[in-house]
């Protein structure tokens, strides 16, 4: 426990450090090349899509190379940033004028600081590993080139999202990742379920985009600007009402992209996408964009306590929501998806806490990016070896046949539960502690959530790797995956073990991010030793219960006589049922009624009025036969009216 204690000096209220990020400094030196970060993968995507089938043989390697090139650029930027003094770590690069009408001027400009740097490293680093993994995973797919084009497109859009220097350019990247997500979820287009899932993800995200659009519009009428500099620098001058609405609208946007309640329903369906996609987009990077948005917009939420509280509430609800769903699912990817939802709930909660939580939201985001990608790729490795089987009731005893996958997955499992010294221990405990600084309710939710997390993850681990084999050699014949898949998993597993320690050592992550996010500490409502040991006890309890329960024989068909909560959780806590009852059915009814009305009433009324007005009712029939005569008649009428007017007005 010494390590964590050294991170937060408990019982002492130390001074808050204000954020000091400067959005106005023009990029210089190595940073003038930051556009390359995006240009590499964007070129890869465009080239692979336009070049067509000629590049089928080697296209995937181009995709990998572009992602790696972007990662290499990121590393260069990172070291350049480390070598710069704190004041020079925030760099803005103006590329070209995008939109300029009146006061509404938005250039395409990039902004790199410690916060975006962290994301850039995560996106390109984990992204590159997943690209490499996918070379093996998608080896049999005839459309592999297209897959890599979309992956590159995703990386480019995600980098634009985190490098944007204005909310509108951020929105550009935001929709870009939405497109890539749509394309990749419905990658197996011949499967109707995949096509529907992709569409659902996009449409639900668009509901969130209503929030983004309104937020940006509000920013413009409030601040006369939509750049980070113009908005975040002037928050103090705006009314609290304005800041509150902007904050709430940003939260709506974040709910869509990060699958937070009530816009969570698309994420479970998104598991229709190939597993590398689930790992990269729907676990490690894209779904965390909402957290980025909130943390980046910190000054707005600090000036709008209501909006900040809403973020905490949404985070807390989703944290439990996802965890409960995770407990009941038998599909290994859906358990992981529920878990992702829940873990992002933690990050949201932390982001809503303000300066006491920002750093840890990002810390957990990075750690989660590593261990969740690790586990998703592990799940993909299992599917790869078992004919795309995802039902955990048909797994069991896989630790003997997939040793590499088992060991690496176990690292991720320990990390997400928060067992010391794995990654989650450092990052999640900080969030729980910060939640207790804010008050009892968020603290308790976060702590109990940790126990549930341990339960469902152990359930997954136990059902998959231990117990008796519930598969047969002739229909599944599980086998270990090739090296090209195992090596990326191994690297991620290593990070799952070590990233928490690396980032926590000497308060590295706090010192790194504080200039952008600010940092503060408060007294917790509960002694922090109790928090730490209590949480750990809950985690161990959850894990032990799950192990004891699922180590025994698991029936291949799910039991039907289960509690109401289990039934609800199996049906995603009725999220879809709700949407169907409240939006889909009334929407269908409205559409049908309007289509009927349009032809009968609107069309009829207008025709009728026209007929009446012109005394045309009798002439309609004749018009259909002799158009020219009627036209002449009209001209005559016109001429008469003309004359009438001339006479009237002159007189």
């Amino acid at each position: 426990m010494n390590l964590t204690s050294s991170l937060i000096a408990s019982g002492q209220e130390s001074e808050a450090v204000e954020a000091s990020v400067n959005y106005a400094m023009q990029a210089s030196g190595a940073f003038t090349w930051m556009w390359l970060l995006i240009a590499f993968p964007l070129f890869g995507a465009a080239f692979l899509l336009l070049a067509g089938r000629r590049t089928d043989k080697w296209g995937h390697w181009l995709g990998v190379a572009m992602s790696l090139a972007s990662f290499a650029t990121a590393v260069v930027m990172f070291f350049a940033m480390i070598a710069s003094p704190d004041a020079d770590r925030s760099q803005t690069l103006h590329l070209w004028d995008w939109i300029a009408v009146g006061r509404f001027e938005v250039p395409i400009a990039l902004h790199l600081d410690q916060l975006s740097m962290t994301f850039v490293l995560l996106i390109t680093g984990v992204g590159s590993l997943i690209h490499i993994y996918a070379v093996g995973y998608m080896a049999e797919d005839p459309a592999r080139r297209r897959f890599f084009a979309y992956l590159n497109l995703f990386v480019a859009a995600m980098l634009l999202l985190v490098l944007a220097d204005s909310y509108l350019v951020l929105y550009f990247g935001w929709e870009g990742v939405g497109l890539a997500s749509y394309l990749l979820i419905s990658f197996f287009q011949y499967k109707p379920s995949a096509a529907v899932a992709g569409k659902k993800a996009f449409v639900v995200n668009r509901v969130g985009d209503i929030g983004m659009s309104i937020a940006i519009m509000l920013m413009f009428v409030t601040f006369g600007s939509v750049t980070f500099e113009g908005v975040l620098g002037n928050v103090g001058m705006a009314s609290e009402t304005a800041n509150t609405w902007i904050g709430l609208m940003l939260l709506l946007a974040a709910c869509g992209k990060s699958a937070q309640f009530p816009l969570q329903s698309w994420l479970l369906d998104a598991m229709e996408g190939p597993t590398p996609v689930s790992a990269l987009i729907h676990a490690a990077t894209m779904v965390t964009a909402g957290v980025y948005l909130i943390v980046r917009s910190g000054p707005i939420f600090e000036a709008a306590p209501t909006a900040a509280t809403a973020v905490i509430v949404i985070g807390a609800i989703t944290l439990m929501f996802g965890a409960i769903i995770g407990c009941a699912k038998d599909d290994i990817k859906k358990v992981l998806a529920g878990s992702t939802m829940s873990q992002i709930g933690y990050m949201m909660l932390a982001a809503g806490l303000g300066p006491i939580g920002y750093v840890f939201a990002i810390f957990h985001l990075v750690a989660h990016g590593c261990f969740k990608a690790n586990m998703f790729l592990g799940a993909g490795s299992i599917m790869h070896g078992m004919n795309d089987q995802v039902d955990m009731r048909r797994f069991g005893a896989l630790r003997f046949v997939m040793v590499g996958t088992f060991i690496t997955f176990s690292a991720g499992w320990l990390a997400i539960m928060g067992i010391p010294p794995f990654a989650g221990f450092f990052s999640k405990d900080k969030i729980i502690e910060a939640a207790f600084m804010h008050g009892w309710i968020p603290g308790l939710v976060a702590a109990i959530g940790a126990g549930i997390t341990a339960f469902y993850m152990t359930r997954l681990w136990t059902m998959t790797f231990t117990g008796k084999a519930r598969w047969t050699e002739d229909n599944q014949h599980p086998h270990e995956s090739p090296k090209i898949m195992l090596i990326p998993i191994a690297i991620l597993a290593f990070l799952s073990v070590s990233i928490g320690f690396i980032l926590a050592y000497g308060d590295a992550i706090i010192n790194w991010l504080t200039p952008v996010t600010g940092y503060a500490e408060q007294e917790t409502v509960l002694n922090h030793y109790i928090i730490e040991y209590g949480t750990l006890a809950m985690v161990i309890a959850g894990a032990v219960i799950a192990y004891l329960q699922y180590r025994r024989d698991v029936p291949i068909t799910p039991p039907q006589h289960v509690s109401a909560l289990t039934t609800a959780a199996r049906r995603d806590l009725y999220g879809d049922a709700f949407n169907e009852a409240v939006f889909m059915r009334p929407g269908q009814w409205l559409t049908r009624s309007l289509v009927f009305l349009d032809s009968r009433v609107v069309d009829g009324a207008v025709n009728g009025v026209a007929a009446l007005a012109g005394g045309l009712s009798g002439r309609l029939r004749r018009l259909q036969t002799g158009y020219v005569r009627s036209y002449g008649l009209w001209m005559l009428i016109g001429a008469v009216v003309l004359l009438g007017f001339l006479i009237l007005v002159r007189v």
Partner: protein
Amino acid sequence: MNSFPWLTLLIVIPIIGAIVLAAMPRESVTQAKKVALAVSLITLIVTIVTLFQFDSDSDQAFQLVNSYSWIPALGVKFSLGLSGISIVMVGLIGVLMPLVILGGWNEADDAIGSVKGYYSLMLTLQALLFGVFMATDRFLFYIFFEAVLIPMYFIIGRYGGPQRQYAAVKFLLYSLVGGLLMLVAVIALYVQGASQLGEGTFDLSALSTLQLDSGIQKWIFLGFFIAFAIKAPMWPVHTWLPDAAGQTTPGSAVLMVGVMDKIGTFGMLALCLPLFPEAAQFFAPFIVVLALISIIYGAIMALGQRDIMRLIAYTSVSHFGFIVMGIFAMTSQGMSGATFYMLNHGLSTGALFLIAGFLISRRGSSLIESFGGVHKVAPILAGTFLLAGLSSLSLPGMSSFVSEFLVLVGTFETYQWAAIIATVGIVLSALYILWLYQRTMTGPVAPGCENFTDLNTREKWSVGPIIALIIFFGFFAAPVLNAINPSVDRVMQQVGVVDPQPAISDNVTIPVDENAVVPLEREANDGEGGQS
């Protein structure tokens, strides 16, 4: 005064082409197509040359003016000129025409009319469309406005689908009602001008100096506005469009929905606002409501369609709602966005109709349920369809995003509630486009679609340039907006409105808690605004 007659050439070249085509023998099918394509390409070159001579920094209301005396007794002139608003439409017409001919290469082959006749009508239509957007004389504008109906009527009536007669007559009746109203308004305006200025004129610049009595102004405004609303078309006078677009050939649908309907929105912006500033401000809230209804209504109707062509037509009703809303928001962002929207809608709808045409020519049906799994057999066809659809749903990276967002932001400044409700449109657009894509392109290959060939070279050259332009303007919108902005600023001056100040600049609370429309402020010296 008169510059080299580039603008006149834009009308004359297609007319000559149309006459040559009409004179060709009926049997020469392929030659007719080649002649039409060649003429449209020459026109395109002239269009491009013209565009490059337009000076964004000029302080002239109209550039490259060609003005000839026509009916001196009535003060009618044949005068053409380009403003920042008309230039985008002129560019659009010039670019779309060869692509439409290329894309719809075989669409007239089986019609009752002759192939050469079809292309003759199409080129005539092009010339008249150029005319209507370039005319700076009200009377000339009216002539073109009405004349456009003639080739369009024959195209629908002779080359359309099974219901073509019904659709053509409906199209004509709606347009005639509007045309009549406008004729009355044009004459009333002339009479007003004659009594105030001493001599009758139809010249826009001169007419915009008139001091009209507010009652008369409202009536004349309505005459113009209803004509334009039918043309645009707005709810509730939109029902001719789905019938017309659903029955006509895909190529002419591009010109009809993509270009011809813009006469309506163009007229509202370039005529109604400068000529009738008071009336426009008086009616603006009502028109914004109608526009809002169009946005939502059109989108919901699109969701309920079974026919691809009708679906695209209804999406246009929704998009026209955005354009009208932007115009009557009376902010520079709203108006410039609306103008840019006219261009972008022409491009994305053009691409959608063309690709729908490719689908229909392969399948022999335009019903959505006739398709399925096309992506598997014709991936490039499916890919271009998706790109065109993404443009229709205004994805960032596509030019339509820039214009739609400008319209939203511009509206938000003056009609906050309207902009907020309009954002529902961004969800609905995603739904109707992606659902259409899902039903036609994904899933198992539907019976009848197994033998689809992918896009051939001709088809690629037809939609490729449109998609390239959509993406190019999506990344580099500023050059187009720079051309549009001065003209929009001029309209703002003529109307006498200025953009609202941001809330923090004068420490007032932002309008979110006022729940009310921000009143449009008249500029102190709006009397001078009209002249330049």
